[in-house]
């Protein structure tokens, strides 16, 4: 079996961190973003495309399989957030958020699972957020998109289990990344206070969860939503 992991959204933030983390552990990593990446490593391969573009997803994943290996692990990290009052949210925000967070996750999952089903199975790790279980005000559309990702994760887990593919989702707490830099400081502080473990998350927390889900021994774990910081 190959040891190739495909991570979406590797240009910066969590995706970049996870890419470097897996590279340091000897994995071959393919990553993508809409813009160029400055990540340079002999085992890193970057592809520029939009994960919500069906033909681009199909074409890229075929190239990965032909020129590198079939994908063993898919980490559906790419996502966009938007903070706004529901009554002030333009339709365009809804369309953009659902296109990347839901459509992109679905297309990557569908096309990667096809490869995995022919190559002995694999692991798919999606990204949700505590915004969904906490019903965070100001994040109605973002939380709704993550609710869709959670539902997709659970159903995909059932449909793909006979192909030895596990599908789980990680729900991080706020983490110091670009995604939250525009959120008011007081808002983040009050969020953290609502967590049983009251601190900001770190990329290491996410890397640890990914390591756990990727372990060979984790082949009995599927359809799970793993929130960090004690949220449930």
């Amino acid at each position: 079996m190959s040891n190739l992991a495909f991570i979406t959204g590797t240009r910066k933030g969590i995706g970049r961190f996870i890419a470097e983390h897996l590279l340091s552990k000897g994995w071959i990593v393919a990553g993508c973003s809409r813009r160029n990446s400055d990540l340079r490593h002999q085992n890193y391969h970057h592809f520029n495309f939009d994960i919500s573009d069906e033909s681009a997803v199909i074409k890229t994943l075929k190239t990965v399989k032909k020129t590198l290996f079939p994908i063993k692990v898919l980490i559906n990290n790419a996502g966009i957030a938007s903070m706004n009052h529901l009554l002030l949210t333009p339709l365009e925000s809804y369309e953009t958020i659902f296109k990347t967070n839901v459509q992109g996750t679905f297309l990557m999952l569908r096309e990667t699972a096809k490869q995995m089903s022919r190559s002995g199975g694999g692991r798919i790790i999606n990204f949700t957020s505590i915004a969904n279980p906490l019903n965070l005000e100001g994040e109605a559309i973002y939380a709704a998109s993550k609710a869709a990702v959670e539902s997709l994760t659970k159903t995909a887990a059932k449909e793909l289990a006979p192909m030895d593919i596990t599908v789980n989702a990680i729900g991080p707490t706020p983490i110091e990344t670009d995604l939250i830099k525009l959120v008011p400081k007081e808002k983040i502080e009050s969020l953290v206070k609502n967590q049983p473990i009251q601190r900001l998350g770190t990329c290491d927390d996410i890397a640890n969860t990914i390591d756990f889900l990727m372990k060979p021994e984790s082949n009995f774990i599927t359809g799970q939503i793993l929130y960090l910081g004690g949220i449930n």
Partner: protein
Amino acid sequence: MSIDKTTLLQLIQTVLKELGEDLEKNSLLDTNEMTPLFGSKSDLDSINLVNLITDIEERLSDEHDIVITLASASAMSSTRSPFLRVGSLVNYILELIKKDNE
């Protein structure tokens, strides 16, 4: 991108034959346009059908440079599914290729 009907039929029959050998199902070794792929008369379960479809997609891409996705909103319909029989699948693929070329 193009493929003629006879070549496409042969491609699907080859994939079915390989699947039949894997699954030890003789009914898949010698198929024709009327061979059922989906529904109670078919020897394929839903996972076998998914494997068949992904194999066909892969061969069309590798051998004929035809990149299409064999997804259909009526895939699981017992009356309208393009995957009901080998013949309906052939016609469906030819239609998809024609649409892509337009």
